[in-house]
């Protein structure tokens, strides 16, 4: 209890408040601008947070991560364009409500649903902390190796219809992480006698290229879309009362978001997809879904906003990021020598509690901001797309150049930008590359660290935790192949 109270001391610091405000309000604005998204913003800001206090840096990034989806609902509902990719399902019912002159109701419903999802997942996270703190120290190298492997397997198979290319990109990411001087025998790997490849590819360079620079190219080469904003009529409290009518949907969707958030590699897309389907199946009027059903907005928004806090669980407990944004945050932890994993709950428990408290405050501030400032945010949505491209390219410079003032880094970032641009044009996933890079590196380290206790391959799974995780991997793969077989038989 004393620890929890002491962690609240951090809120006497002005810089913590500034980080919370900048992160939460900045996140909403970024989310509200179609074409930017939290991944681009976090990739750009990442190097700037390296020089900050770890809690401040993480709070800014978490603020953006946690609040971008709140903002993303605004263009999804008003102009049928999701602000962030994970607001896509909100367009189904949100835009239909806007066409029926219920824009304000749809927006406030989305805000309150997001708030419910956000707070629910933080509460879940806090309650799970004690459990994690007990279990986490039991994790050894082999267990973390298996957990990372599970993450990779889930990343690949969660890209349904794109499993093979996701697999190739995961291995591509893993390969990138091996380039440069390795740390055991200090030999060079795939440096092709180039001195600039000695230290390998920095995660930030790849991240900025694949997410930010590629997005800048997409926007610069594309055309501006003229958007007309609908008028906001109605009362702000309508959404809250509507949410109260569908409490069960909100709770189920939030729980689904938490579950999906914890599982590495799954994330918001599947969370909202499952929640939406569950909401439809338990609805009295399932035929309304896609035509302005309030439950549709609740399911989508509560689920995707429950993911960010839940996604922190594998990151904090095991040091295993479940998706690209938590992979980016992992690098902030490493820079400040705060190593996520079992030790975090022993050595830096005050930091963990401070993080939870920041998350709660972020959600409260975002909610207040949105109820007050939605009208003004409508102007931001109308920023011309190509000008956004100019701004993102200019901001990407800050991200990559500040690493070590290197022209080579900038050129590599641009090369990855072109690669990301090609992937986007082909509708191929980018996230597997990043997770391959991060998890591949963890896997190699843990693989080597566990060698002292390995005589046969069976030794990797003869520990209770690694055995259970391996069983989960096997079951997951069996279910995946069984579903493919079933689909194949259905089609033929």
């Amino acid at each position: 209890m004393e620890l929890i109270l002491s962690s609240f001391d951090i809120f006497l610091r002005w810089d913590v408040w500034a980080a919370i405000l900048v992160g939460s309000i900045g996140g909403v604005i970024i989310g509200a601008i179609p074409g930017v998204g939290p991944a681009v913003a976090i990739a750009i800001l990442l190097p700037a947070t390296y020089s900050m206090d770890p809690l401040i840096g993480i709070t800014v990034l978490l603020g953006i991560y946690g609040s971008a989806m709140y903002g993303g609902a605004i263009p999804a509902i008003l102009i049928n364009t999701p602000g962030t990719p994970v607001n896509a399902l909100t367009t189904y019912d949100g835009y239909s409500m806007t066409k029926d002159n219920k824009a304000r109701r749809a927006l406030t419903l989305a805000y309150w649903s997001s708030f419910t999802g956000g707070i629910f997942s933080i509460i879940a996270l806090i309650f799970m902390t004690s459990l994690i703190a007990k279990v986490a120290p039991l994790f050894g190298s082999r267990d973390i190796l298996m957990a990372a492997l599970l993450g990779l397997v889930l990343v690949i198979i969660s890209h349904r219809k794109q499993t093979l290319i996701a697999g190739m990109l995961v291995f591509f990411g893993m390969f990138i992480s091996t380039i440069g001087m390795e740390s055991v025998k200090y030999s060079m790997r795939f440096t092709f006698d180039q001195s600039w490849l000695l230290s390998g590819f920095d995660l930030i360079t790849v991240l900025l290229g694949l997410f930010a620079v590629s997005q800048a190219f997409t926007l610069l080469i594309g055309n501006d879309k003229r958007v007309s904003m609908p008028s906001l009529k109605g009362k702000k409290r309508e959404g809250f009362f509507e949410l109260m009518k569908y409490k069960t949907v909100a709770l189920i969707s939030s729980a689904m978001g938490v579950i999906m958030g914890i599982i590495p590699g799954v994330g918001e897309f599947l969370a909202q997809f499952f929640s939406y389907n569950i909401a439809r199946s338990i609805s009295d009027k399932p035929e309304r879904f896609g035509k302005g059903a309030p439950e549709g907005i609740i399911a989508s928004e509560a689920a995707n906003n429950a993911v960010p806090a839940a996604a922190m669980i594998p990151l904090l407990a095991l040091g295993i990021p479940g998706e690209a944004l938590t992979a980016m945050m992992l690098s902030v932890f490493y820079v400040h020598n705060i190593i996520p994993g079992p030790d975090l709950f022993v050595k830096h428990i005050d930091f963990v509690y401070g993080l939870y408290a920041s998350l709660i405050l972020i959600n409260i501030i975002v909610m207040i901001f949105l109820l007050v400032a939605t009208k003004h945010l409508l102007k931001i949505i109308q920023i011309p797309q190509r000008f956004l491209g100019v701004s993102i390219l200019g901001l990407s410079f800050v991200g990559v150049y500040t690493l070590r003032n290197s022209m080579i880094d900038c050129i590599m970032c641009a090369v990855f930008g072109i690669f990301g641009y090609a992937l986007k044009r082909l509708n191929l996933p980018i996230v597997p590359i990043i997770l391959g890079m991060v998890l591949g590196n963890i896997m190699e380290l843990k693989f080597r660290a566990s060698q002292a206790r390995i005589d046969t391959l069976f030794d990797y799974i003869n520990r209770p935790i690694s055995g259970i995780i391996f069983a989960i991997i096997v079951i997951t793969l069996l279910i995946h192949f069984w579903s493919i077989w079933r689909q194949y038989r259905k089609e033929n």
Partner: protein
Amino acid sequence: MGKEEYQAGDLVFAMLMLLIVLVLLVSIPFETKWFDGVPLVKQPRLWPTFCLVGMALFGLLYSIQIWRNYKFQLGEVQAELNELSSWLRPLEFVFYFVLYVWSVPLVGYLLSTLLFFSLLTIRAGYRTLLMFWVSLATGFGIVVVFKSLLQVKVASGAIYDYLPDGWATFFMIYF
């Protein structure tokens, strides 16, 4: 297991990736070291080989799938090549970006950013006075936030050496 609809460029992308993997696989003996007397699991060569084999396996299956499922025909070669050329369209912006990076240590972060934002805004098709000022204000804002306030490490411009001492230090620290 694959994309539902074939898209021009899918095949050429798969082939390019396969080609890269093949080149990398062939270069394993030259680009990684093998230490005698060290067990296989501790060899630095093991992990990149594992990654490349995995990449080749998935890449091969992906290419076969595209070839078979989408009934690729020779007539579509032109569409593939058109898509390939469209991937190179951002090269123009890469050039501007590199020029920007090159100019920062010479003319300083502030001036190069103002030039980059204003000129690229014009190139992007916004030729009104309003957008010109907006681009300058955006560039200035970014420099103030990142360099002046957050003090990120950006090389100071050689041009600042020509300013009077007090001004030179001020610009080196804040712009």
